[in-house]
């Protein structure tokens, strides 16, 4: 029987896909809200990086005698109690919030992945013990945990990174472990076992790459709350410690009592926190849709 042109070797010649990350990126960029999120984040990232250049004043160039003033041509966001330019402080504040927030999430991610991989990979007693520890950590509300750690370790950016990171690590650990447990039953993992693949190879080559996508989404969303957590710590007086360093949370603390008279002092840092957090949330949601392995056609 003559082989027909429609025979099995033929797959549509124009490639519908060019790699999984590429596809995901394309899907992401078609998602309106995600683009908005990216814009928000980009805005603050640029603000943070270029703060020294674009800020009209140094955040510490404060003229005490000026006192609180509303927005004016010279100070577009007004001045705070010490007479410092609010706008510059907001811009510089982005540095702390973003760096600390993102680093904390990253730190939590690394820790969580390690613990989750060990628990999910080893199973048995190791898994049981680790999970109970994680359960305990999760029982404590994140912000309280962070407060406890900062109270113990003292002020400083690194301490905040640790504190916030530790409060997120259990979530990542559990998420990863759950994914690994589910993936372990997948046919392709079983196929790898039946070929004689070592457990390490299976973990690194088969399980982790497929388990990471929920983590990426979760990490992005965690960045949103991390920014709020960092600001929260600052608000509670557990911030970086140096009063001259501009930090959004501390700016809120300083201005809280001026709610009636100078609401803009709360409005601008508050808006910055909220908008940057929303940005990460939108991006996270967009990533979830884009990375979703709906790869069954």
């Amino acid at each position, binding site marked *: 029987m003559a082989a027909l*042109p429609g025979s099995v070797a033929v797959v549509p*010649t124009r490639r519908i896909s060019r790699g999984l990350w590429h596809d995901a990126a394309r899907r992401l960029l078609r998602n309106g809200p995600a683009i908005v999120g990216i814009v928000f984040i980009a805005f603050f990232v640029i603000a943070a990086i270029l703060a020294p250049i674009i800020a009209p004043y140094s955040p510490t160039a404060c003229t005490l005698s000026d006192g609180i003033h509303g927005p004016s041509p010279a100070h577009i966001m007004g001045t705070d109690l010490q007479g410092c330019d609010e706008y510059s402080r907001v811009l510089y504040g982005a540095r702390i919030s973003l760096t600390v927030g993102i680093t904390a999430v990253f730190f939590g991610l690394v820790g969580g992945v390690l613990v989750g991989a060990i628990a999910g990979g080893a199973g048995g007693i190791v898994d049981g013990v680790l999970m109970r520890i994680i359960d305990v950590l999760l029982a404590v509300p994140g912000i309280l945990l962070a407060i406890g750690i900062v109270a113990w370790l003292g002020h400083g950016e690194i301490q905040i990174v640790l504190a916030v990171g530790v409060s997120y690590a259990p979530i990542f650990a559990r998420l990863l472990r759950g994914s690994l447990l589910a993936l372990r039953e997948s046919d392709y993992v079983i196929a790898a076992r039946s070929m004689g693949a070592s457990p390490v190879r299976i973990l690194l080559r088969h399980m982790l790459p497929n388990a990471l996508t929920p983590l990426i989404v979760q990490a992005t969303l965690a960045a949103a709350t991390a920014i709020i957590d960092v600001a929260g710590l600052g608000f509670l007086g557990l911030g970086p410690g140096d009063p001259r360093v501009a930090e959004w949370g501390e700016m809120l603390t300083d201005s809280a009592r001026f709610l009636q008279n100078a609401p803009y002092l709360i409005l601008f840092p508050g808006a910055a926190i909220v908008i940057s957090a929303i940005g990460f949330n939108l991006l996270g949601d967009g990533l979830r849709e884009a990375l979703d392995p709906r790869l069954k056609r």
Partner: protein
Amino acid sequence: MHLLSVNNLLVRFRTHDESVFAVNGVSLDLDEGETLGLVGESGCGKSVTNLAVMQLLPKPAGKIEGGEVVFQGRDLLSLDESEMRELRGKEIAMIFQDPMTSLNPVLTIEEQMVETIRAHRRVSKPEARARTLELLHTVGIPQPEARLRNFPHQFSGGMRQRVMIAMALALEPKLLIADEPTTALDVTIQAQVLDLLQRLTTERGTAVILITHDLGVVAGMTKRVNVMYAGFVVEAASTADLFARPRHPYTVGLLHSMPRLDAQPGEPLIPIEGVPPDLRRAPVGCPFAPRCAWRVEACWTAMPPLDPIEATQVIVTTGPNATHRIACWNPVTPEEAIAARPLRAGFEPAAPPTEAVS
């Protein structure tokens, strides 16, 4: 007048990314009490056609973009949702492949069946309950009183399907649409359920559309068959005729590519080459052309209409003497149907036009 008449039905699924051309001009008729088999592989449109009849297409993506559906003389496509709800369950009922998803997992069987009955009939709860018991008994559920309080997950697959049948037949509908009712069941359970289905529908004179991909099931359960491919009906005939004298290359291909339990040992399978069609492209010409050993030039450019295999005065679309119709420019001869390949001297399948892809 036919019980159900579908004429040139067109169904598309439209998302912002793409369109899926699910049903591309399907016509079929059904009389009271008939059992029609709708056969085809996944994606051929057999399920979508029936969802369209019931107006149960997923919204907003699923759209009926042409054709008409006439049931007992009424144009179903012109009815609004509340009128359709009147019909569903009472006049037309549907059972699905996976009873786990079509039975509500948080309601007991009693609750679900009583609700169904009372939605359409003014009866008291005790009366509805009695009817439910009667139905469960009819479908062969052992100890029905005890099982009324059970939830769907407490039944086995075969039992659940029986409950589905009981619910579907509770109101004595004129038409039952069974969408792959036994595909997910073991073969001995399948035998039980099909036997039950056949017995009950014969007793009650219910018309049945049986959707399946299994030609063996069709052979045993139906009197007439429509074979579908890529949203078209490609062959329509009485069951006996379809198996004894298939004329469409797809039907011939299917028959020869399925292992038969009673085949001679060593009998080769003759597969249909190629891959299933991509329904995201609007159909140009006959969708089976890339895989067809009988194709001629015309097949690439125009879809043949569903026409009788022999010129005839009257086209009968229902009943045991239904006209055997196919949609093909180059039908298969009886000898070729046995041999499963073209036998004409020097015949070569027509090459695709230069710019087409498979």
